[in-house]
């Protein structure tokens, strides 16, 4: 079958059914009646509340989930394998598509890995730009989470507000990088271009608008009886369980562990920014909501500090012509493209510049042999890149440790024993992005 997984489904479900039928009679502990057999249902892969193509195999006793098995892989696109046949720079365009709600984090983690293999460091201004874009991205990602999570629990107005504000951020991304998603903006050695002339003004305007909007969400949800009913005490995952399952990010911080790689293992100069790590101890869905809302405010603080630092001009790509991306780009009315002046230079003025351009674009950089594992704090937790080089012009192996993939393993623990309706709230509070899970 073209879509796959299907042959296994029938077998798996039949096995589970047989197993149930062979069990001894179950009597209800209250009425003493023989209980009806349990039911096995598929939630997903096409289901409005599974955040894409996540499939849950649920065994139900009435409304209670007694067994849950998450099944993934429907969005597998072979990103890791593809990068092995592309240049180091082209790899950026692949990894940015993995977790499509946090493209800058994928780009950053990949580029930090390549830079460590090369033994170089990106110029300070480009690092500030990276931090700024990542934090805006974190807000955008959390907005999608509050929007879709709200929708799944019936708070449809939150959905509209979340996507409305996310659009403000995507507009900034479009003005800065030329694209709303999948930017390929961060490259090994820096970023491809500086902010456009009105970039700082746009971001400052967003910083003025956003705090009041976050207040609005909190006014709408914090004490909302339905929101509380659906989230408080639901999907509890203790810190011990979380760590055993490798769960990181807001889920772990909502369980009382103040773990944040920006503080614990700082990168890109995060140690020089002033921000707090929001922590709650309730370990339920509602605590995760509060943590993410607080994180948005902290991200705004970081963006504000980064914007101030951008007043200092400087290069945004390493000066070394053997490493740095030679192409000058500019954003035109139809998106990002080659800068006219640069085109004129390589086509009309300098043969050497043309040769250099050709060599760097088609062949790129040779990266010395070695292996690194580099992590960043993505909106969903520890995003790690294990990159191996065999002294070639392309990677030997790129492994993406995606936080959604790892966090999903904790779903059975959080769902089993609860109601099926709570399973929806649990998945929502987990915020998995299947593009990252399946890669």
């Amino acid at each position, binding site marked *: 079958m073209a879509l796959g997984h299907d042959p*296994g489904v029938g077998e798996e479900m039949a096995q589970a059914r047989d197993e149930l039928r062979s069990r001894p009679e179950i009597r209800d502990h209250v009425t003493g009646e023989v209980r009806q057999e349990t039911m096995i249902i598929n939630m997903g892969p096409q289901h409005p509340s599974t955040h894409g193509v996540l499939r849950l195999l649920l065994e139900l006793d009435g409304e209670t989930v007694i067994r849950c098995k998450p099944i993934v892989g429907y969005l597998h696109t072979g990103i890791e394998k593809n990068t092995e046949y592309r240049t180091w720079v082209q790899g950026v365009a692949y990894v940015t598509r993995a977790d499509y709600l946090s493209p800058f984090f994928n780009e950053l983690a990949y580029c930090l890995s390549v830079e460590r293999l090369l033994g170089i460091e990106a110029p300070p201004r480009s690092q500030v730009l990276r931090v700024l874009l990542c934090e805006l991205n974190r807000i955008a990602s959390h907005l999608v989470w509050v929007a879709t999570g709200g929708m799944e629990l019936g708070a449809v107005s939150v959905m509209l507000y979340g996507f409305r504000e996310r659009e403000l951020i995507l507009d900034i991304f479009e003005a800065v990088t030329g694209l709303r998603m999948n930017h390929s903006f961060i490259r090994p050695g820096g970023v491809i271009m500086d902010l456009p002339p009105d970039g700082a003004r746009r971001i400052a305007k967003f910083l003025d608008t956003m705090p009041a909007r976050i207040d609005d969400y909190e006014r709408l949800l914090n004490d909302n009886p339905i929101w509380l009913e659906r989230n408080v005490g639901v999907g509890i995952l203790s810190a011990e369980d979380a760590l055993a399952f490798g769960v990181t990010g807001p889920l772990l911080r909502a369980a009382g562990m103040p773990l944040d790689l920006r503080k614990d293992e700082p990168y890109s100069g995060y140690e020089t920014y002033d921000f707090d790590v929001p922590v709650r101890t309730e370990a339920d869905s509602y605590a995760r909501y509060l943590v993410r809302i607080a994180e948005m405010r902290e991200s705004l603080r970081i963006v504000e500090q980064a914007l101030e630092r951008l007043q200092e001009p400087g290069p945004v790509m390493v000066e070394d012509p053997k490493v740095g991306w030679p192409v000058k780009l500019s954003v035109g009315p139809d998106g990002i493209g080659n800068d006219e002046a640069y085109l004129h230079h390589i086509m009309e003025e300098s043969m050497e510049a043309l040769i250099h351009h050709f060599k760097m674009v088609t062949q*790129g950089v040779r990266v010395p042999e070695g292996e690194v*594992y580099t992590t960043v704090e993505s909106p969903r937790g520890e995003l790690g890149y294990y990159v191996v080089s065999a002294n070639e012009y392309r990677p030997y192996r790129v492994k993406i440790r995606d936080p959604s993939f790892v966090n999903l*393993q904790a779903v059975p623990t959080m769902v089993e024993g609860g109601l099926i309706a709570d399973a929806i709230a649990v998945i929502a509070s987990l915020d998995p992005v299947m593009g990252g899970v399946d890669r």
Partner: protein
Amino acid sequence: MKAAALADRIRGAFDDVLLARDEVTLLVGREELVDTLVRLRDQPDLSFGFLSSLTATDHPGKDPRFWVAYELRSIEHAHRMRVKVGLPGDDPRLPSITALFPTANWHEREVWDLFGLVFDGHPDLDRILLPDDWDGHPLRKDEELGGVGTQYHGAFIPPVDERTMP
């Protein structure tokens, strides 16, 4: 602990320790893997109690052909290290560590799926990313990539490794 100090500390207890690019790598045989991970977890000054990631690389024609890399992290001390296990190409088996780190479950399934390495003792070693009826293990370097046939005058798009490569 800083990487250099950590490397020195681990050199005191193990033989094959590498330090490169501020990362500590410990090479062990598959027989010692579980014991090593338990020791690294239980020593109070190391306490590598968190498994970040687990993956493999394939080097056909070399011995060992496969390397499995375990990325360990210590929450208490905020330091990291890597444990690597080499496996021969004709017998790619190693013990599962799911009993030690439950998070290894899906990682090991992924490595089985993409590299065809067998984790003995894994509770549910099924494919995870690819369809259940998939043939082969695509992240092996000798796996055929296959091209794509088209309807345009019988044209065939060659696999990526047969196109012009840098």
